[in-house]
């Protein structure tokens, strides 16, 4: 079992997982069932937690285990559970037609991945040929792509709830970028971010509820009426 001590093996695993996260993200773009979207998010968060765990293991950084654990509990467990409960309560299971249809959305997501790689390229310095730089290079591209696709999801969806999902995956992108570049930010920063996300979801959940009450719909396009 010597490969378990080999950092290069760990980096490959991380790259693989990051690729999976990206695939899931692109899958979420084409997804129309709310519950499926939430579950995709849950799996994505689980993979992120695993990445964090692997980084912690190979770098012998104790506090990242806590981060990984928190990710697992909050993002892979609590938040999906909260959101699913919300879906059940407001009894809306399907996203109505997004602004841009599914095939085109996936195409755009692909382009955004490309943008992520182009941007990450500029941070990549070939003279530093160490493995860690290569790892940063790949995961940073994935992280930027995650971020952009998450943003794109937010503006592509009509339902406030699926926008929340987009926002959460955007945040996942940030998390990935942070953890893969720095090998763990100080714990207090991580805790702050988790707390932020939790509060954001709660506030947004209430907001979704209110929007639904006021407009009889979760469609944020109706907020346009506020202008008059």
């Amino acid at each position, binding site marked *: 079992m010597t490969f378990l001590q080999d950092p290069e093996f760990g980096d490959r695993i991380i790259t693989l997982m990051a690729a999976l996260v990206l695939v899931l993200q692109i899958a979420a773009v084409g997804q129309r069932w709310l519950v499926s979207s939430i579950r995709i998010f849950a799996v994505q968060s689980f993979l992120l937690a695993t990445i964090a765990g692997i980084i912690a293991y190979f770098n012998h950084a104790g506090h990242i285990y806590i981060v990984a654990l928190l990710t697992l509990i909050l993002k892979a467990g609590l938040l999906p559970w909260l959101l699913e409960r919300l879906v059940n309560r407001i009894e809306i299971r399907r996203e109505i037609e997004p602004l841009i249809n599914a095939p085109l959305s996936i195409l755009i997501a692909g382009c955004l991945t490309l943008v992520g790689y182009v941007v990450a*390229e*500029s941070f990549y310095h070939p003279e530093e040929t160490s493995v860690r730089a290569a790892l940063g290079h790949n995961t940073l591209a994935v992280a930027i792509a995650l971020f952009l696709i998450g943003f794109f999801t937010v503006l592509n969806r009509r339902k406030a709830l699926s926008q929340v999902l987009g926002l959460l995956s955007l945040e996942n992108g940030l998390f990935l970028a942070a953890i893969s570049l720095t090998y763990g930010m100080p714990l207090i920063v991580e805790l702050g971010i988790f707390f932020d996300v939790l509060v954001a979801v709660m506030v947004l959940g209430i907001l979704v509820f209110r929007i639904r009450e006021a407009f009889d719909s979760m469609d*944020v396009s109706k907020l346009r009426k506020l*202008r008059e």
Partner: protein
Amino acid sequence: MNTLPVGTIFALSLTAYSTGALASLATWRKPALCRYICCGSALAGAVLGGLAAVFGILQGTPVRWSVSSGIPLFAYSFDYDALAGFFNLTLAILAGAVSIYSFSYLKEFEGKRNIGFFGFLFHLLLLSLTIVFTTANVFLFLIGWEVMALVAYGLVTFYHEDRETRRAGLLYIVMAHIDAGCLLLGFALLMQVSGSAEFASFRTAAAQLSSGQQAVAFVLFFLGFGIKAGVIPFHIWLPAAHPVAPSNISALLSGIVLKAGIYGMVRIFLDGLGILPSWAGLLVLIVGVASAVLGVLYALMEHDLKRLLAYHSIENIGIILIGLGAALVFRVAGHPQLAAVALIAAMFHTLNHAIFKCLLFLGAGSVLHSTGTRNMEELGGLIRPMPVTAFCFLIGAVAISGLPPLNGFVSEWLTYQSLLAGFGATGGLTRILFPLAGSMLALTGALAAACFVKAFAITFLALPRGTEARHVHEAPRSMLVGMGWLTVTCLALGLGVTWFLPAFDALTEQLLGQRVGTNLISGHGLVLSAGMRHGGTVSTAVIGIGLVILLIPAVLLVSIGARRFARRRGPTWDCGLPGLSEENEYTATAFSKPLRMIFSVLYQPRREIQAVFDVSPYFPKAIRFESEIEPTFEKRLYVPLKDLLLWFSTRMRAIQAGSIHAYLAYIFVTLVLLLLFGVRP
């Protein structure tokens, strides 16, 4: 003489104004007490401010003091030099008169309006003006400038129930902010070059300005200060805002707030921008001529007493700019002595206009206070119930018309003299421009006289035309005292001009390095001369004495005649048509008709007559008459500008779709573009 406590007294005056502002607010629930506090502290501030200014002028050397604020570039620095002293003195004279006047004037607000709030704004206006005239720091200047604009807005819209008032206030605040924007840009440019926010640094940095920068700065400042001063074509806010404000405020607005624009021009054009090229001076001169002539022409067509006065402010600002423009041209042409004379003319006219315009507005305020109308066509015969007001108004009218021996005459005469000298002192096209400007100034003077014959005669002479003017009484005593003080100042500055003129030496020495005061005075201190070869001479004192001497036989003749012949009263000859009433009197519209016809190209008058008759058109039952002149600047300049702005705004509104998705898309696209942009090495 350098131990006079200028700074201390000045600081006390600022304290009086600021405590007055707070005390007025604090006592607003007790209107009578509040009125005492409001007028008392303003008067105290004015007296202290005036004292500081007189000391400052006597002392002759600038007093500077500066308190650091801890914020970079911003300091509470003051520079009490000759220019500051001059404007502070002008302010103090007016503030004193208006405070006394307001004591009775505000009485009618008791129980109806919030005197505390009025007093608060009033004190802030005086405070901000004092700061603007004295500060040496750009930021403090701009803060004072902006406070002045906002407070003036509050005062203009004091009768805010009126739709007209609100519209005027809006127009004013929009123009005020355009001007503040121009100033901000101009100062930013200067500060970039000098690296400091002190006015003194601009003086030394002026040499580093390229001619392009200098031109841009000049245009920005001319726009900014020109809007505040109300020069044509930026004058439109002035005839709208001045009539609707309470009359004591109109007097301050017209008397001193406009002068803040003049102050800024003198401070920056003569001191901060280096030697301006001659086109700049000529531009100021030409704009001045246009403002003078057009201002008085529009004034002639007004029947609203306060609007008429507001248009006259435009005219007089024009006259001041003529002097200032001439000074700028002479300076660059290498005639500093002439420049000093022209500058004295401009500054003296600034002081004079402030005093007599304030007097006239206060007089109009008394009329409005007693009759409740500003429409001259409904007034008439007020000289009998209101003799003191009528006398004060008459003195103001004589002064503003530029008739000897009053102060308006002296400053206009000096302006003429410098314009005539300009013909010999310059070459090329400029040479022709000076006599042309002089002739336009002559036209302005004549038209102004015609206009005030109209204003005085229609308002105070003949019989009352409307019901409002029937049962009126003289204004309360404090209002008369306020006006009387200004009347006395008018007479003193006119008859005793030779005593006051040397006081301008410090001013011209500071700005132009010349002392010409003594050159201007000859004949044992009684005769005023233009201070140049082939220049004219005049003596207001002699004219005044001559008038009194002429008056004695007239008075004697009248008193002898009254004893010898009994006074007979008889009806006016009515051409055989009985039923002649006051309504058949000569009206203001009729009086200005010849001029309306002569200048019809400008006015584009429109009139409409409708007769209602039963049997034959020769026996009309009623006739409806309507006449108006085209508001050229509003129609030709501002309406297209406004339309363009609205069109642009409507286009811009499409971006503000109100859709969350659209907003998100803006952010997203910007983000992606920035990311890609950042990738480029």
